[in-house]
């Protein structure tokens, strides 16, 4: 399984992960080796296998729709790099 530099850059973009040229080249090599190992799964016939149930074997765990205490806005904003009027402040999203 050999990835191209373009594919690596695309994956990095999907993950919003800034990567240098050197990193692209290194990841290209490392990921190709790792992905090769995954080919071994092709040896297993899984046509009749249902997908795995959730790890906890539970589903639809719900509680009553009643508001309960949560964190205060101050607590939530306390770690933010930049805030304004109880909002997180970020650089422009749209041009």
């Amino acid at each position, binding site marked *: 399984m050999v990835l191209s530099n373009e594919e690596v850059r695309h994956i990095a973009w999907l993950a*919003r992960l800034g990567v240098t040229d050197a990193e692209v080249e290194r990841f290209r090599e490392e990921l190709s080796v*790792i992905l090769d190992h995954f080919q071994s799964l092709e040896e297993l016939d899984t046509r009749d296998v249902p997908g795995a149930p959730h790890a906890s074997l539970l589903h639809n765990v719900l509680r009553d729709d009643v508001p309960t205490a949560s964190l205060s806005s101050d607590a939530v904003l306390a770690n933010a790099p930049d805030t304004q009027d109880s909002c997180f402040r970020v*650089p422009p999203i749209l041009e």
Partner: protein
Amino acid sequence: MSGDELHTLSIHAARRLLDSRELSAQELTEACLARIDHVESRVSALLTVCAETALAQAAAADRALSSAQAAPMTGIPFIAKDLLCTRGIPTTCGSRILEGFVPPYDATVIERLLDQHAVLLGKANMDEFAMGSSTEHSAYFPTHNPWNLDCVPGGSSGGSAAALAAGEALFTLGSDTGGSIRQPAGFCGVVGLKPTYGRVSRYGLVAFASSLDQIGPFARDVEDCALVMNAIAGQCARDATSAPLAVPDFTACLTNDVRGLRIGVPKEYFIEGMQPEVRHSVEEAIATLERMGASVRRDLSLPSTKYALAAYYIIAPSEASANLARYDGVKYGFARRLATAEESISATRGAGFGQEVKRRIMLGTYALSAGYYDAYYLKAQKVRYLISDEFQKAFKECDVLAMPTSPTVAFPLGSKLNDPMQMYLSDVFTLPVNIAGIPALSLPCGFVGGLPVGLQLMADRFREDLLLKVGHAYEQSTEWHLQRPKM
């Protein structure tokens, strides 16, 4: 017992001394803090030491003890992996991207322990976001194995394992997604338990792979392990994956009687390429259990075992790529600001994450992306079903399975950093357990060249009692768990 040795007490021994008031929580906490001062420059197990808050907690513990309001964990000093949120105390997950982050809440397990007036001494070093098997991927510094400072303590909970082995606390907490409690427990000669998925609440555990992560104890012996489990296990309203099952008294199964217990030894865990002395120590341990009355069958085969590595390295990074999407420099942590939001997020993540984390985010993103999801993630989930099913069938005929925790003992620092696959292979005996969601225990069973060997026991879901029973019985006949590194 002299003040010099208080840090070596087991929880059960400390409990007696605290309850009879022969020992105060303050003395015990001070002894551990002094021990930390004495060994930390050599071991580097901790990212944060909370001496002030610890002493205040010890004072509160002493007040509870004097007014006969002590609980099983009152006054017991512990250390928590830095992946666990601790209110008011920095929590970095071993990453630069959370440098300076101070959680506004405690993880459920922390809350439960502090409610009993246990004493939190500090936060332990770890591989960044729990991704690693040596603690060398901590963004801060590597931790050293107390048995040989040139060797790794294992990972990703290497700090928790090393801190306990070095005597810095009476127990520690770690997390296990692919072996991150058991492998360092094996490398550091302590007891480590990964509970059944859902046995312990994950609320406040920073998520790596949500279908695999579990919090668990490191302890000096199996009885201590059971005591910690009593305190931390149980359903939690804030973790929808926590099991609605009553918590038994985990000490009730410590009967020192394994007669008639069926132990299975799967062939696939005794392979070429494992250290012969490790194989020997583990086979000796199994023979000891046989002499104690357990029946052992060595003809067991779990053919899907060899596919667990590939399944894990698709599932875990896929889930991690989703869980780590939240680190964007907007709500907390390190932030790099450029002209637009997208550039800022990209630059923040590029600078804030280490190489191993980036590698796994990339792997996971690829496996989940359009055109590849069926071939990778879906396929891995089906393989997961096969692996779980195989264990289910094995547990119809065996009470526990026994095998080594790792193919080798602790390796030298730096020796596996050039080849990611090499590092991944050190988890080959621990990964299948997380894939299947079953519980597993590692306990010391020997030494090779002065480095500890771990015996691993696996049991069916919610049968931690069987692991503890067998482990405890083994300890009554051996003294490996009583050995301490010379520090």
